[in-house]
């Protein structure tokens, strides 16, 4: 197997591939990240059968932690396969923090966390804010320290989908982008390398100050979310809350008590950024 290693925040990965090309692409996109000697997780990209190694090549996602009936992806979506494999290891295997399926940015030593279903725009919003004076911390997972409650970054490659691709290419013309992968199970996908400060400071955690539940495609609206509702929604948004037992419960209750939460609707990226700035100012 061809091999590639990368450290993202506190998590170290080893990615093995049957083919050289996906490894070369990962290595160039993750060029500025540290390379660990002992990885936390192994991800394997292999052909689902001998035939599919050569003819209509496709990539099965495999690794330390797996889902039983994951569907293989076409070969030209191998980068997406690697991303899904890495996410899966975190979602199923990470126990050192309370893991939230959310994006995060930081400013002035305090963290803004955004969570929501796929399509809510949390990933795009974090990338946009990352171009507008905020430190990008991650677009997929936020890791809450079980003792201090601080948010630890997980700044993997930003995964842009559909309309967000053109929007970010316009907003960040100097950024490095990966190849366009069309018609994947998640729509069109393009990866973007996070700003260099995000990578350089990926071990710096900070306390969370605001939680947003963004929703794209509606007129601007803000609603306060009570701790009880936040608690229920965040247990859904965490993949390891149950497995952590009492430690997870303590971290989660502390989070919903200390961090104010708002549900926001927004019609465009620009208005979302302006709205976030307004909410953030009111906070301080």
């Amino acid at each position, binding site marked *: *197997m061809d091999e590639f290693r990368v450290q993202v925040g506190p998590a*170290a990965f*080893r990615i*093995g591939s049957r083919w050289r090309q996906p490894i070369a692409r990962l290595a160039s996109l993750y060029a500025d990240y540290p390379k*660990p*000697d*002992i*990885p*936390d997780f*192994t991800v*394997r990209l*292999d052909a689902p059968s001998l035939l599919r190694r050569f003819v209509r090549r496709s990539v099965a996602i*495999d690794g*330390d*932690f797996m889902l039983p009936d994951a569907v293989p992806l076409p070969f030209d979506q191998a980068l997406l396969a690697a991303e899904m494999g890495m996410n899966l290891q975190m979602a199923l*295997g*990470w*126990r*050192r923090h309370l893991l939230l399926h959310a994006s995060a940015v930081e400013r002035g030593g305090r963290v803004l966390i955004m969570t929501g279903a796929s399509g809510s725009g949390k990933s795009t919003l974090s990338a946009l804010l990352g171009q507008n004076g905020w430190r990008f911390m991650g677009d997929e997972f936020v890791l809450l320290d079980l003792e201090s409650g601080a948010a630890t970054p997980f700044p993997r490659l930003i995964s842009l989908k559909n309309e967000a691709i053109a929007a970010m290419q316009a907003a960040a013309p100097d950024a490095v982008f990966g190849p366009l992968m069309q018609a994947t199970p998640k729509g069109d996908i393009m990866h973007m390398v996070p700003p260099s400060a995000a990578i350089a400071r990926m071990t710096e955690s900070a306390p969370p100050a605001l939680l947003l539940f963004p929703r794209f495609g509606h007129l601007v609206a803000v609603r306060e979310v009570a701790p009880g509702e936040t608690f229920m929604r965040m247990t859904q948004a965490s993949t390891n809350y*149950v*497995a*952590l*037992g009492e*430690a997870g419960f303590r971290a989660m209750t502390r989070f919903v008590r200390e961090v104010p939460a708002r549900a926001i609707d927004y019609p465009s990226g620009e208005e979302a950024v302006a709205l976030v700035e307004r909410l953030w100012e009111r906070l301080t």
Partner: protein
Amino acid sequence: MSRDAMLLVEALRDPASTRGLDADGWTALIAMARAEQLIGTLAHRLQCESVPSKVAEILADARINAEHQRRSALWEADCAVRALADYDGKVVLLKGTAYVAAGLQAGEGRHIGDLDIMVAREDLPQVEKLLLEKGGWEWVKEDVYDDAYYRDHMHELPPLIHKDRDRMIDVHHTILPLTAGPRPDAVAMLAEARNVDAEKAVSAEPVEVREAVLDRASTGSALTGDMCVLSPTDMVIHCAAHLFADGDLAGGLRNLWDMHCLLTEFSERDESFWAMLQTRAQYHQLWPAVHRGARLAHELYRTEIPKEWQNWNSHDKWYIRRLTARDAWGRPTRKITRLIFYIRSHLLRMPPMMLARHLFTKWRKGSRKT
């Protein structure tokens, strides 16, 4: 770099053997342990070793996970016992859940998936009804052929899954398929099954949980008081039957580790254990499986077994080749050996003609679906 899972076997057998590992060695060891579902066991074994800081973090994760699995397994067992409160017969926990409920060393750090229980065969209709109506379990898949096959030929009901908790339960009435060669005496196993010692089941819980549970147990409301486990000899025999007389040795290193722990713990408690085990295994027609399990555990994990049990069998090396077929990426290796054991597992389960009929039916159904 290590050739196969002997690296994992050595680390389990002798934790100090990991002191010489470099970064690649640790990487391979962790990938293999995860693939064999032995990472929790490894974490438990290496508790007193000083390991690289990254490894310490990985093993700490594995301990948290094992603790979660232990807790969930006992909770599932508790739910099943409460659903079966109106059933008068014994409810016997099997495999991993039994080991943690009985506080055995085999349960330390062990991965536990489904809940396995055993009840008397004639009581299956009642137990099935209670689990479906009172417990909230439902059939995983409704398929007339599979359902009939399970009921006519297997040692368990078709698997049930819980509506809300998404956890499976296997209800056994004996320990081997009815079509297999050996015919263990399930009635005798049930007769010898004994209540779980409530103290042991909760010994790893915080003190306030322990007191609350023991309080409930003493008033006779569910939990451990109504749970049984097999007698020590039958527990070993079931472990060996599961490993060698049923299945293709997938997950075999873990099952053999169970065997190692059970043999070591029971023989330390009682000197006459070996003689009782042999007599009981012969009675259940499973002496070859038990003997092979003890030999292989001795060979791989250095289990102390009686001298006269140590006569090496020429086939054992093939079992070891199969058990250790794993590479540094955690991938299965030795395809041909695996295939041979896979075919063997089907031949053990049923006579050849029946197997042919079964595979033909399965194949027809499979090709109709696509």
